[in-house]
């Protein structure tokens, strides 16, 4: 088990910034997923940890050792970590057993101990029968397991995985997810798992670091990401969150605030020390909205613009009368009752709203001086 940290790390290729001021603390023994769209810099982050790239600014630490900084650069072969590459990177000219035992051979372990550890590793991933095969004669899932066994045999304390499931078909992914969980349990290693698939990240990791455009937007447990996103980008990215402009935010009691959402008085969850602000953004998931019964007065008046049945639930697209430029799509469970048609008026109520801690203070969609908030605002406009 090794902890790993990035301290204010920036990386640029020439003049193109790829990572900007990234700080990340990976605890010993943790299963951390790095989640983000393709091209956002995930692989670069992993290669910085591994030592294939040097940071332009900042420091990389493994355990309590600084491995990269302005004056230090420990090469990958001296960092003692394992990597599972997206394409597995198995050496085609070696047998499965030789692949698994290579790091031990390099380390100069005696033959008997080497064989013993290779055998154990292959047993753990259930590949004992294939020890003498060449990687070319294995299926995709089996190659993946050889790559895992390689890290097991080397007893790597820190294992980096770069989109390990991206090359496998959907059915195999579920089995391999279980394999990774077992690997984490049995090796006790710290795992950094890169992916662009949020369900994979949520299902596997203790914590998920959400990345976009070279920044880490939020690093938190899957549940916290889903229920308490830090900003508009994370909110819309995780579970298709919806964004609503709110005004006149007033604290009610710890962790709860009152506000006006498009003219409707609502209460919502918020981070505890939330002070009063004139403008902010609230979010909820498409399943957290429901149609009001006829007698309910407190709800958002909308016109339905389309209705699609999606097996088990309906997707209703609607525009609020308070601001016709906004569009929301909500999910309603199919309970057999009648639903409004496109063109009908309806009223919806909110189950569970969350006040975004970032991007408060200015009206929805207005320009701000703060750089990151501007991009957040643009996102909001695109998403809703």
């Amino acid at each position, binding site marked *: 088990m090794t902890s790993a940290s990035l301290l204010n790390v920036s990386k640029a290729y020439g003049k193109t910034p790829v990572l900007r001021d990234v700080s990340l603390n990976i605890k010993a023994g943790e299963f951390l997923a790095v989640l983000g769209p393709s091209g956002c810099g995930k692989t670069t982050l992993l290669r910085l940890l591994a030592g294939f790239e040097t940071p332009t600014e900042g420091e990389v630490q493994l355990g309590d050792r600084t491995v990269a900084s302005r004056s230090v650069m420990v090469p990958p072969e001296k960092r003692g970590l394992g*990597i599972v*590459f997206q394409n597995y*990177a198995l050496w085609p000219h070696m047998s499965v057993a030789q692949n698994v035992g*290579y*790091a031990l051979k*390099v380390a100069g372990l005696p033959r008997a101990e080497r064989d013993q550890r290779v055998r154990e590793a292959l047993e753990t991933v259930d590949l004992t029968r294939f020890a003498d095969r060449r990687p070319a004669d294995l299926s995709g899932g089996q190659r993946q397991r050889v790559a895992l066994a390689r890290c097991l045999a080397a007893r790597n304390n820190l294992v980096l995985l770069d989109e390990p499931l991206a090359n496998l078909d959907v059915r195999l992914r579920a089995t391999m997810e279980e394999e990774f969980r077992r690997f984490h349990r049995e090796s006790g290693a710290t795992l950094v798992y890169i992916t662009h698939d949020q369900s994979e990240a949520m299902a596997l990791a203790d914590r998920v670091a959400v990345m976009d455009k070279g920044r880490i937007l939020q690093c938190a447990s899957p549940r916290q990401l889903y229920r308490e996103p830090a900003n508009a980008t994370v909110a819309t990215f995780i579970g298709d969150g919806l964004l609503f402009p709110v005004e006149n935010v007033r604290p009610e009691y710890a962790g709860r605030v009152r506000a006006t959402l498009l003219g409707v008085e609502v209460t919502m969850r918020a981070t505890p020390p939330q002070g009063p602000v004139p403008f902010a953004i609230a979010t909820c998931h498409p399943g957290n909205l429901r149609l009001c019964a006829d007698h309910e007065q407190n709800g958002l008046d909308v016109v339905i613009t389309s209705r699609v049945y999606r097996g088990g639930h309906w997707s209703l697209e609607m525009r609020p009368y308070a601001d016709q430029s906004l569009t929301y799509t909500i999910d309603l469970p199919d309970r057999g009752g009648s639903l409004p048609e496109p063109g009908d008026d309806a009223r919806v109520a909110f189950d569970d709203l969350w006040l975004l801690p970032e991007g408060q203070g200015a009206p929805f969609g207005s320009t701000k001086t703060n750089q990151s908030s501007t991009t957040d605002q643009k996102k909001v406009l695109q998403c809703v």
Partner: protein
Amino acid sequence: MPAQRRREVALSIFSRFTGQNAVLVLLTLLVGTIAVAPLVRLAISALFDGDGFAVERLTKLFSRPQTSAALVNTLIIATLSTIASLVIGVVFAVVMVFTDLKHKSALVFAFVLPLMIPPQVTAMAWIQAFSPSSPVLGMLGMAMEPGSRHPLYSMTGVVLLLGVYNAPLVYLSLQASLRRLPLNLAEAARAAGASPARTVFTVLLPLARGGILAAASLSFVSAIGNFGIQAMLGIPGRVPTLMTQIYQQVNNIGPSALPNMAMLSIVLVALTVTAVLMANWAASRADTRIDLGTNRLTVALGVYTWPVMILLWGYMIVSLLLPLSALLQTSLVPAFGLSLSAETFTLKNYTAALFNQPILRDALKTSLWLTSVSVVILTVIAVLLGYFLTWRKGPLVRVLQFCTDAAYALPGVSLGVALILIFLRPLPIFDVSLYGTAWIILVAYVAGFFALALRPVLSGYQQIDRNLEEAAQVAGASWGRRMVEIIFPLVAPAATASAILVFMSAINEIQTSIMLISSSARTLGPMIIFLEDGGASTLAAAVGCLMVLGILAIMLITSIFSRYLPERVLPWQF
């Protein structure tokens, strides 16, 4: 800040001076010497005399009618033969890449074979093919009248032979770019109603413009640098070219001719560099979109199958059978000009070539060891160099890239002149003279075949996933260990292919050898010219046949083992 920055730079340079960087520095020095030193030496000798810039000598040189004749002839020959090569090579490439013709492997093998035969042997075979006793022409009743002027001893002869000789080069370069053309462009044209043939001519060939220009420049450079054909046909035909002039002047006049010939060598280099730059420019403009994994456009030839077959095989008969049968016949009769019959048949030329001629045996021995040593040195250099050029960045790698490009630009005869200039006097520190020994030829082979050795290895590296090395690196393996245990096994097939190509070219090498050989160090390649000049045509023919036989054997054997070699690095594989 600057001081701190400097300290950091110094620190990082120091901490990174590992085995890998030491090798990189040594390699850069070596390649820099091999590639750049000859050019520099040529330039110095050409431009400066003892008392400064040699204006007067150079003015005289360039106002000599022979000089301008040689320059004009070189340009005309290179241009016209390139056009001929293009016509033949483009047709062949289109048929091979886009049609459903059968027996393509055999056709490609036969088409590329002439390129593997040393040019001096080709030239000799063609000379004999148009002699009064030519078997093929004789059969057709078209043999020459005895006593008439030989039609190939002329500008036309040189152009035609170079055109045929370099056509495979055009095919090889063009087929690679034709294969890369995205299929969906062809499909879009088909969907728009164009017939398959129309699609090839209106969509695919225009798209391959860059590839065609690159092929043209390759064939141009190779025509300029083909000493064997220019010498064997051009010298008796009184068609002087830059190359033959350099050879003759250095040979006849001796060291005093060197400065002027260094200047002509520089002119040769300039022509080559211009063509190479044009090729790079063309390549940079070429459509490089790749569309892998889909089937390529295949035109069903239908009723045209037979005409196309007859055309292609007819071409093979003319370009291969006509010259080689003449060569074989000459090698089997006791004196040149006799036609082959039961009474004239003899194997004495072969027994002479193989057993009775100590000069030939020595030449073969020298060529064999020179070639073997060159192959080993070049393979090691190519594997290391390929690693750095493919996977490393930085100023040293850019220098290395530049030197590698420079090595492409030096024609063999120019290299020969440069090496004479460098080694004429004893080496300063060691006080030994390499001039006149086989070692200078070894230097020439290493410098001359450097580019040839590198190309397959580079394409081999491009097919290796860098993650394989990185995986070994995180496993803790040092650079040297990774090179030996991971990289080398992975590039071994490409390195083998490159070793085969170098072997085949070096064992028969003529241009630099002929400039550098002496009575104490003879190689095989130039022997043909010497025997032919000395009137021993039948013996020369036997030696030529043995060379072709050896080449053919290597080609066939490698074809049998081709599945162990990377795809398409050996030119004769389809």
